[in-house]
């Protein structure tokens, strides 16, 4: 196995960290399904199959100053960005302490001003113009930052995608549009969503940089996003990237994917699962030893256990709190 990360400037420790975040996201996600099946949480939306792209992308950004607008599958991204496992669990149990919305929104609707992470909603693609607005404002203020936004390939067919991309290009704004193409929009496959080969083929229609990469490879994700980041800092405007992924779970816990795709198809995709293939890569290079792996899994499990326990016991927001924060409260 050839070492691919050194040329990208990553140490062995770096790629272990990368893997760790992928694994944390995967294990959190798996736990959520268990909690759902046990009747403890009513709803799960998953990141499984997209962790590699998310972590690779996050590594290319600056956690100290960039603005991000992750979408509902971005568990791995958000964990790396600064949300703790405990906060993830509070979010999924919809408790008062959930930093994203205090239990007001469904799980996976992230947002944190402290983390410069825009608040996400359910109507898809509305975050795209927001990310453009962030970049516009930063440019006006002379702040040298990047504004990063993600969305699904189905969502790339919404008008808001087009309007946001066009606005960003006309004003040459430092925006990175990352489409996480997991080949399904609920039950509707790629061929019924778009007629071009890659979502990134749309870049040329906006006169912007476009690139598609292997969404199972965090290093490919890093390289692509890094290129877009560098372009943005050089004043070369926005980029449209596509991560080629596969959604390994049903759309959400409310979905039964066997009504529209086969187990064989999913099993085939599992073979390319980035969490597994990146682990293989690290094992082959002797970076991920069995010992390290066990230690990692154990630590993660313990953290998830504690977080789950904490979140389960944590109080809901008070019913009367629903009347608050409709408008600014000045007194």
């Amino acid at each position, binding site marked *: 196995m050839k070492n691919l990360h050194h040329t990208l400037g990553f140490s062995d420790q770096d790629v272990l960290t990368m893997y760790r975040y992928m694994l944390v996201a995967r294990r959190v996600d798996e736990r959520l399904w268990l909690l759902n099946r046990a009747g403890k949480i009513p709803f799960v939306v998953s990141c499984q199959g997209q962790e590699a792209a998310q972590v690779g992308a996050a590594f290319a950004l600056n956690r100290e100053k960039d603005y991000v607008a992750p979408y509902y599958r971005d568990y791995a991204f958000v964990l790396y960005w600064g949300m703790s496992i405990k906060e993830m669990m509070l979010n999924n149990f919809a408790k008062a302490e959930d930093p994203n919305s205090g239990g*007001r929104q*469904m799980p996976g609707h992230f947002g944190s001003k402290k983390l410069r992470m825009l608040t996400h*909603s359910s*109507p898809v693609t509305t975050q795209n113009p927001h990310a453009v607005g962030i970049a516009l404002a930063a440019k006006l203020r002379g702040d040298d930052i990047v504004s990063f936004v993600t969305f699904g390939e189905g969502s790339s067919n*919404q008008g808001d995608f087009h309007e946001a991309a066009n606005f960003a290009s006309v004003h040459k704004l430092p925006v990175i549009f990352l489409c996480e193409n997991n080949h399904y929009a609920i039950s509707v496959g790629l061929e019924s969503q*778009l007629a071009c080969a890659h979502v990134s083929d749309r870049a040329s229609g906006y006169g912007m940089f476009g690139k598609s990469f292997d969404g199972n490879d965090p290093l490919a994700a890093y390289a692509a996003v890094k290129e877009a980041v560098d372009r943005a800092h050089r004043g070369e405007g926005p980029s449209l990237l596509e991560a080629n992924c596969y959604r390994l779970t049903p759309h959400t816990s409310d979905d039964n994917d066997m009504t529209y795709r086969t187990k064989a198809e999913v099993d085939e995709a599992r073979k390319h699962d980035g969490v597994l293939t990146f682990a293989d890569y690290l094992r082959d290079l002797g970076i991920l030893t069995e010992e390290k792996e066990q230690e990692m899994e154990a630590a993660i499990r313990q953290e998830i256990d504690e977080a789950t326990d904490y979140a389960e016991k944590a109080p809901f927001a008070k019913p009367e709190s629903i009347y608050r924060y409709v408008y600014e409260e000045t007194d």
Partner: protein
Amino acid sequence: MAVISYIDAINLAMKEEMERDDQVIIMGEDVGKRGGVFQATKGLYEEFGGSRVIDTPLAESAIVGVGIGAAMYGMRPIAEMQFSDFMLPAVNQIISEAAKIRYRSNNDWSVPLTIRAPYGGGVHGGLYHSQSMEAIFANVPGLKIVMPSTPYDVKGLLKASIRSNDPVIFYEHKRAYRLIKGEVPDADYTLAIGKASVKREGTDVTVITYGLMVHDALKAADTLKDQGISVHILDLCTVYPLDKQAIIEAAVKTGKVLLLTEDTKEGSVISEVAAIIAENCLFDLDAPIKRLAAPDVPAMPYAGPLEHEFMVQPDQVEAAIRDLAEF
């Protein structure tokens, strides 16, 4: 007559209309193989094929806009919005186009389009899967907005909507889908859009409402009957344009009116009902009109206790009727 669920009535109405008229098609997200995320179109893809039950790209403005074009060609498209909350990207097509095409073309063109959308809360849907979206469109002449409460009404009104030569927004209460069951005739029938329906005759207090809350009102009326309070219940069925005559008659009948909606209060459909009564029946009222609605906050939160606090609860309905009776 068979007893079927609210969602089965929807499914059956579409199936029968598609069998009856090959110009009826369905367009929407996941309506094909998946049979819709709520299974409203279950079996229709298998029966009618992918060219009449069309999985569209994820783009509501196109679903409605393409539906309008197909309707102008002479088809009768049923456009499914996955949740009423997600109609908002299509508002321009609905209000600027569907609603105005007959009028602006001086009756030359028309848009026989039915837009179906699940609405309503109490399903752990959070802010964006729980909203009542009727008020946004209830000031748009050219549109009709149907919001049925029972399987019988669903089937008759959905068939009428599909056969209508004007655009109809057909709101289905998603919690009613499996919760509400009722008798539905086997024979083909339609019900008139624009007509309210008396769901219970009574003499002390009039309740005017629509959708799932009709059932809260019916339950409260049952309870209150034992306490000697007789409740008259008018189900609006069509919330735009309203059946003014029926509203006036129902208000005058008891002189005490409770208006119920799941929507946030200010600017809701029941505000117009109150205005109609205030304009037409002032001297027939024995008590001020009372409105019971959701609080004026942006939408229903997700966490259980918060959702509960947002929603009008059956005991509030009962108490409000009692207060009016005792007024």
